[in-house]
């Protein structure tokens, strides 16, 4: 267990509700922190009140609300805020949800404070006082355990790495305004425009428990993919071919240069399983593939593979699931 509190960055939506993976990080933080407790960092103008019930259920003791006039969406400003929160909390471990923008802040924090940083982690433990992180690398084909030797550890954790659970006893989180001294250099970048993406009405791709993915084999018709996703309560993803063709938005691209997913269940339909795609999904719990080509590389990593036409197999599976679910 850590001797000092564990700090968690509280990623949230525009309405102030926590992003789903944050609850997972808080669960993990609680296990690691024990009596030292878990503290949160609230970055942004959104109303923290919307998140307080969830934070209480997670047993969070203190929330440091970053008080600054500058935009915390700038990674250098976020790093300024995290630096202040580290000092205020006395924490030696900071957890962030793995996302490109959080990794930018993590890198800056590490350079500034001498912290050790590990990204895309799927498990954490404390051994002999050191933080030890577990991660899968090389497109999900290897697992490593990596210790942080610096006094402070900054760790970005992948969604779906732990099952979120409420604390045994809820807390009453104290929200404290934390003045942030923004460095002059942090505001050299101007945020000209920021547009929040509209939600799809489906779970968020990066953190969904189930992801159904369409590739070139859909030929642009995602209806079968969407139907199965909806029966399974999952998110819809795509290969780069499908996003480049404009069949679906770029934010749906899964892979090494898109979103990394590790859901409990991944279903790929008309997806060949190119190495660039596998890099973003190979760590998934269970992999199902439907492809008309028996030699498609995705079958090498599939737990359940169907050589067949996705337009026959997916609707039949969806209908059967609806029947079984009654």
């Amino acid at each position, binding site marked *: 267990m850590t001797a000092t509190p564990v700090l968690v960055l509280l990623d949230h939506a525009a309405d102030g509700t926590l992003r789903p993976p944050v609850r997972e990080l808080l669960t993990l933080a609680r296990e690691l922190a024990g009596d030292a407790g878990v503290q949160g960092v609230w970055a942004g103008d959104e109303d923290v009140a919307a998140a307080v019930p969830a934070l209480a259920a997670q047993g969070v003791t203190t929330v440091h609300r970053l008080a600054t006039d500058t935009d915390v*969406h700038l990674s*250098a400003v976020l790093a300024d805020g995290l630096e202040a929160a580290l000092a205020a909390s006395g924490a030696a471990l900071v957890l962030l949800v793995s996302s*490109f923008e959080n*990794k*930018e*802040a*993590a*890198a*800056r924090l*590490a*350079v500034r404070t001498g912290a050790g*940083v590990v*990204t*895309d982690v799927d498990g954490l433990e404390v051994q002999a006082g050191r933080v030890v992180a577990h991660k899968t*690398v090389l497109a*999900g084909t*290897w*697992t*490593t*355990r*990596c210790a*942080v*030797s*610096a006094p402070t550890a900054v760790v970005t954790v992948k969604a779906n790495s732990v099952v979120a659970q409420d604390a045994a006893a809820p807390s009453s989180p104290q929200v404290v305004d934390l003045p942030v001294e923004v460095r002059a*250099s942090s505001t*050299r*970048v*101007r*945020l*000209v425009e*920021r*547009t929040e*993406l509209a939600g799809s009405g489906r779970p968020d791709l990066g953190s969904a428990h189930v992801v159904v993915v369409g590739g070139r084999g859909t030929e642009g018709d995602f209806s079968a993919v969407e139907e199965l996703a909806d029966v399974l309560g999952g998110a819809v993803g795509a290969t780069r071919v499908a996003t480049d063709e404009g069949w679906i938005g770029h*934010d749906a691209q899964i892979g*090494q*240069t898109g*979103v990394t997913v590790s859901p*409990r269940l991944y279903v790929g339909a008309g997806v060949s399983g190119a190495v*660039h795609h596998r890099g973003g999904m190979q760590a998934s719990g*269970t992999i*199902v593939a*439907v492809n008309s080509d*028996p030699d498609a590389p995705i*079958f090498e*990593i599939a*737990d*359940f*593979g*169907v*050589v*067949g036409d996705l337009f*026959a*197999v997916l609707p*039949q*599976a*969806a*209908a*059967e*699931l609806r029947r*079984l679910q009654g």
Partner: protein
Amino acid sequence: MRIVVCVKFVPDIQSDRQLGPDGRVVRDGGDGTLNELDENAVEAALALAEEHDGHVVVLTVGPDDAVDAVRKGLQMGADEAVHVLDDAVAGSDAIGTATVLAAAVRHLGADAPVDLVLTGMAGLDGLTSLLPAALAEALDLPALPLASTLAVDPAVGTVTVTRRLDHATETLSADLPVLVSVTDGLNEPRYPNFKGIMAARKKPVTTLTLADLGVDPGTVGAAGARTEVLEAAARPPREDRVLLTDTGDAGTRLAAWLVERKLV
């Protein structure tokens, strides 16, 4: 405009990549290549240099054969290359690599100011994406990461990028000098042609050591790393796998399997 592109030599992702017990990628020669995602950065640099009469330096830190990565950059059309080669660099984490690259960029800046530092969005080996922001921090430069569009206005000296994040799209701008990391969606990297390959042979490749750069070897490499790999193991193959050919009921069987596995 003087542009430095930082590139990495990585094992070919199409090859069977292995880790040693120290967690470092095993390099048994022959299957290394210029990180694909850095080709987009080289392409961006060349396109800007063509438009604004620029000079492009490709820079890498790595073992002997990493020189192949900068050679490829020269073949694509870069003007000169710098290879930081020093045994003490081995085992660097992203922060250590950023320290060395920052020193090398400063070294280049002593000859003539560097206006733009470009990198790819990630290394296809580690995929940590930490380097661009760490390098900007080490160089005290404003960073415009993950550019999927990039516009430079040299008259007023501003750079504007757009980028796509998980929940938002952003437009960022800053005044030169800046660091920009580019995505694979920004451009289509050119292939080196015969002329480019021949011309590259005559282009200068400077090899520098940590001593040349004034970097204390204790702060980088395995000695300076703030993380230590304790263990690396190949993931066991998946078990109990089912592969069937649809004869009319595969969808039904898939549904039953998902229910049996408690995945719904």
